[in-house]
């Protein structure tokens, strides 16, 4: 049975709206007008145990709302969801002890005057972690997240990267079986980002945890996730292997051609020129036309090098986000 099952999940809410004029402001005092925002609409997917799934989409697509519904913070307006067999928004104690949600924008909640070690001890008591398990988990987390120098420091004095490491340690101390990671590498430098990615992959490998990860950094998704779910404006656009995302969503291939210096072909007669530099060109060609165009290029031009590639994931996603053709 899949760890996470989502069926027709929807959430919408009313946002107050009014015109910009002073008279409208007065009118809104008496009669408020609302607009219905459909944050998530009819979302359905399943995630098996031990999977790391990338949950991607542009700003306002409904990613965080979905994570909040699956972690029990938000109540949907429609549909069903099951996480580890629990209905998340009932917020049963046994459910909350099995999940963690970590937000890159706010990795640690609660008292900030405590030291990291104090906070970990309190987490042990709240989640009823035995002393043996606490010591074992703490030493593993300390090693993997390089927490040693942070343990005696107050939470409020930590940098963003340090907060994220401490936040992960606090959330993973009780070994949750499902992790919801919302932009875990937000604002981190290259080193901290690398460490975070390695850590997430190791945690999943060691514990068999299921992870649903949102990130605007495609490198996070490419490094960690074999499967992705792409949503836009609250609705599903793609759900499947990362490797076929470009193929599915982009009807184009990228042809990179290098010719002898002397040649000066009219590149636009072969396809849409994406990039041109001296005797090298990148052409965007419709998938079905790729074999024919490749044959023409080889027949008509002094080709030195030629490669056929899927467009980079980053640019496919960028175009989807912009609502352009892919």
């Amino acid at each position: 049975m899949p760890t996470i099952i989502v069926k027709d999940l929807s959430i919408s809410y009313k946002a107050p709206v009014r015109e910009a004029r002073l008279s409208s402001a007065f009118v809104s005092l008496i009669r408020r007008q609302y607009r219905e925002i459909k944050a998530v609409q009819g979302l359905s997917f399943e995630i098996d145990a031990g999977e790391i799934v990338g949950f991607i989409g542009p700003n306002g697509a409904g990613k965080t709302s979905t994570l909040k519904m699956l972690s029990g913070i938000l109540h949907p307006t429609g549909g069903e969801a099951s996480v580890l067999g629990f209905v998340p928004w009932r917020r049963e104690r046994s459910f909350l002890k099995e999940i963690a949600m970590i937000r890159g924008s706010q990795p640690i909640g609660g008292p900030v005057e405590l030291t990291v070690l104090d906070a970990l001890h309190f987490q042990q008591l709240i989640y009823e972690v035995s002393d043996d398990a606490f010591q074992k988990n703490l030493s593993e987390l300390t090693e993997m997240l390089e927490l040693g120098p942070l343990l005696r420091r107050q939470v409020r004095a930590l940098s963003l990267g340090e907060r994220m490491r401490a936040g992960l340690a606090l959330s993973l101390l009780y070994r949750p079986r499902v992790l919801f990671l919302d932009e875990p590498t937000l604002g981190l430098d290259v080193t901290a980002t690398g460490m975070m990615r390695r850590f997430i992959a190791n945690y999943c490998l060691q514990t068999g945890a299921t992870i649903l990860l949102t990130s605007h950094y495609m490198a996070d998704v490419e490094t960690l996730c074999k499967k992705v779910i792409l949503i836009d404006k609250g609705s599903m656009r793609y759900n499947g292997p990362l490797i076929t995302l470009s193929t599915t969503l982009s009807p184009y291939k990228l042809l990179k051609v290098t010719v002898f210096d002397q040649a000066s072909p009219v590149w636009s007669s072969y396809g849409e020129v994406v990039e041109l530099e001296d005797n090298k060109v990148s052409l965007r060609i419709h998938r079905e036309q790729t074999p024919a165009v490749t044959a023409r290029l080889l027949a008509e031009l002094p080709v030195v090098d030629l490669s056929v590639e899927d467009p980079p994931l980053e640019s496919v996603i960028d175009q989807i986000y912009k609502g352009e053709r892919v």
Partner: protein
Amino acid sequence: MHLLRLLAVSIKRQFLEWMGWRAFLITLVVNQTVAPLLGLAVWSVALPGSTQIPTYYMALLIVQLMTVSYEQHTFSNGLYDGTLSHELLKPQPVVIGLLGTNIAARLLHVLIGLPIILIVGAITSISFAPVAPRFIVGVLLAIPAVLLAAILRFLFMYLLALSAFWTERAHGVAGFGETLAFLLGGSAAPIPLFPQSIRPLGELLPFRYMLGFPAEIASGSLNEVLQGYGYQVCWIGVFALAAIFAWRAGLRRFMAVGG
């Protein structure tokens, strides 16, 4: 038992947290002492030679520090800045964390306020000797009243703080509540000194039972103590039910529109 253990954890955690705000705590304590000390000064001038007034305001000062509540900050701000989400993810009722914060703050208020209490006691030369047996009885009877007042004041402030689910201005709502408690709770004037026309109102409303009532008992007004306990229990029931209702409605709203 499990909830009590969680509450103990929360108190300890928040005690450590508040300890990190020493300077801020001192200003909070001083701020809490202003109203009783002002009342003491005004009424000592108005009723010179009264032995009950200094004892009443001294007791009120202690009650004020023992029942202090800042839920408009601890809860409402958490809702505004999104940290309530963290609390909702914890496998414990959200109110446990708030109670822990409240009790820890009260313990520290009493601890830091102790020198002020001693100094005021020395300056006003309160003498309990002539009424010692009555005083001891008064203090013993005041203890349950203080405990009930502590619960009542927490529930009152918590209820006002829950307005944060519906408004961005919960501090204004709570500030209005605090003003009512000052005017009608026995700080501005002891309820027995209220004009005859509005005294029944003061005796009926919940504010007296948050502040003035325990202080009245401790200063020797031992009439109708049981009736006062009864009022306290009734108001606790009313505010507890209102808080449960408001929490559920507010949480439904929060879970519907997000934090």
